[in-house]
């Protein structure tokens, strides 16, 4: 009976094109899209050189130093440089300020502008050093993850984040929202007048979602490997354990939240209170290291942040589970709390 219920869930689920899209296709598109955007270092950075016609020896030294960087140096007379600036085409511009220089960064194009400015500053330091008789060319920068995985690119960082986020959205929407919708439309009521034991219905549903999530994670891992050559650095046992824990935690959250809403509208509001902060504050797409301290600390209390950290640790750096005990304990605590609430409050109508 349980098997039949489980198979029926799969059959009906596979007919739901919208659900299929959000479950399998959307995460892949997101991974592909963001991965490609951040894969290379982007277009070459341009720095506008706005200098009066007469140059000093220091200017010449500076220009030489800049030429040794990867920046494309665009030399323009000040008037023209100003016009280019006003057209909004300039991301960063270096110009004379008294004896020294200053760099103007376009506040609308900070991604390019900041990077160009940083490189220019480095060039300046090198020019200074040379001037003082020191002979250095560059300060090399090496990208490396905490687990010494060298070739880390953005897609590698993103993949575990997206998997974690998917577990959360499956739990909140595919479990929680679906249950509220069933209850609202009275789908449970027709079941409640049959002798089908409730636990079989629920177990069938949970087993189904569990297999969906695991399948989904594997599709994404496979895609990450094929598209970006990302591989699992940890043990597969640890990876499976972490994935199962996440599924359990976020599904329990979905069940628990669904017991607080009678209509899908209320549920939408309630679940978004959890979903959006977690999505933006848990280091899915970007790290929070630039955020205020208190926020970084607070976020650890939400389950997604420590979860993704643990997942990245295992998957990207081959860390043993033991090194993320605290984070995993936070997730486990949420799991038990949510499960307790779900069991206590669950209603059929």
């Amino acid at each position: 009976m349980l098997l039949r219920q489980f198979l029926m869930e799969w059959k009906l689920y596979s007919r739901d094109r919208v659900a299929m899209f959000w479950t399998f296709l959307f995460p892949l598109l997101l991974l592909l899209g963001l991965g490609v955007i951040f894969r290379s270092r982007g277009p070459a950075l341009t720095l506008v050189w706005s200098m009066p016609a007469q140059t000093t020896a220091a200017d010449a030294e500076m220009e030489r130093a800049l030429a040794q960087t990867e920046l494309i140096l665009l030399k323009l007379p000040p008037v023209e440089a100003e016009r280019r600036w006003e057209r909004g085409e300039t991301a960063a511009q270096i110009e004379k300020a008294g004896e020294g220089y200053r760099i103007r960064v376009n506040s609308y194009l900070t991604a390019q502008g900041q990077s160009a400015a940083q490189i220019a500053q480095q060039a300046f330091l090198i020019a200074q050093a040379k001037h003082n008789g020191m002979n250095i060319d560059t300060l090399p920068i090496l990208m490396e993850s905490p687990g010494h995985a060298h070739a880390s690119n953005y897609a590698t960082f993103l993949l575990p984040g997206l998997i974690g986020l998917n577990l959360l959205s499956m739990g909140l929407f595919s479990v929680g929202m679906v249950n509220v919708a069933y209850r609202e439309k009275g789908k449970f009521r027709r079941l409640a007048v049959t002798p089908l034991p409730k636990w079989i219905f629920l177990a069938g549903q949970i087993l189904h979602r569990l297999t969906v999530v695991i399948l989904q994670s594997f599709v994404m891992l496979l895609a990450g490997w094929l598209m970006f050559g990302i591989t699992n650095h940890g043990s597969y046992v640890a990876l499976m354990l972490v994935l199962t824990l996440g599924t359990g935690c976020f599904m329990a959250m979905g069940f628990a939240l669904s017991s607080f809403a009678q209509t899908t509208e209320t549920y939408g509001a309630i679940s978004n209170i959890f979903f959006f902060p977690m999505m933006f504050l848990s280091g899915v797409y970007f790290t929070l290291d630039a955020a205020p301290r208190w926020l970084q600390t607070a976020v650890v209390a939400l389950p997604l942040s420590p979860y993704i950290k643990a997942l990245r640790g295992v998957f990207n750096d081959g860390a043993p589970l033991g090194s993320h005990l605290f984070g995993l304990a936070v997730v486990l605590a949420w799991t038990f709390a949510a499960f307790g609430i779900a069991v206590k409050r669950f209603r059929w109508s």
Partner: protein
Amino acid sequence: MSEPVLRVRGLRKQYPKVLAVDHLDLDVAAGEVFGLLGPNGAGKTTTLEIIEGLTAQDAGEIAIFGMDWKRHGKEIRSRIGVQLQSTSLFNKITPREALDLYGSYYPKRRSTKDLLDLVQLNEKADAYHITLSGGQQQRLAVALALINDPELVFLDEPTTGLDPQARRSLWDVIHHMKEEGRTVILTTHYMEEAEALCDRLAIMDRGRILTSGSPMELVRELELPSVVEFTFDGKAPDASDFARKLNQAVESRGDTWEIPTQDPKSLLPCLLEFAEMEKVPYKQVHVRRASLEDVFLHRTGRSLRE
């Protein structure tokens, strides 16, 4: 008399704003088609859903096949069939799959094919539920109520929203249930449906049963068994003046005046004469037997469908 299939005593359900069921007693005997007739909001659905074990009552006892819900819930569930007022299935399940699935929940079940034949859904057996018409969805809901070969079937407004032809074919299905010896409890707010289907019925309003009996008995109980109707072109004029002069109750509804009477034979001649004298611009005159509608009107002062 043998033990009734259903016995309800002192049933009460209070919702925050309304007393939906108010000290209600019911007895339904084996093999009968029993109707709960009443306007929207009378408490029919609430009563049925309490009996079906879906809603908890505030007070009152229910015995189904002599058993109670607390101790024999599973056994009762496997012997009753339920069509809810709105049966919501998965959008993309087909009638065949739905019947197979719900059938799998029961120890004893009828074949999917027989039921599809019975409710004439063969052509749509493999179409997604969401693509079925309202009438087809309703027939599927009725077929689902029969999947476990139940002894007692609950049908909550089985024909509401159906066109006349679809309604007739559902009536046939319900007649068939009776022939097979099932006990049927249905609700409706169509009096002609109650008259056509029910062996016995209870008229319900505001959570109470006003009266019960066979349709014939109920009409006979009315002391005014006939109704004279004047039909007008367009809306009927105000009748109060005419009624006062005639010294007789005249009900103005839509394009007709209804004049209930005990003795149409003596009323009719003087009525016609008087109408002539008053120059009442009526088009037609009919005399008909009083119906359940009139019983309801008489009991509550309101019509079944306002």
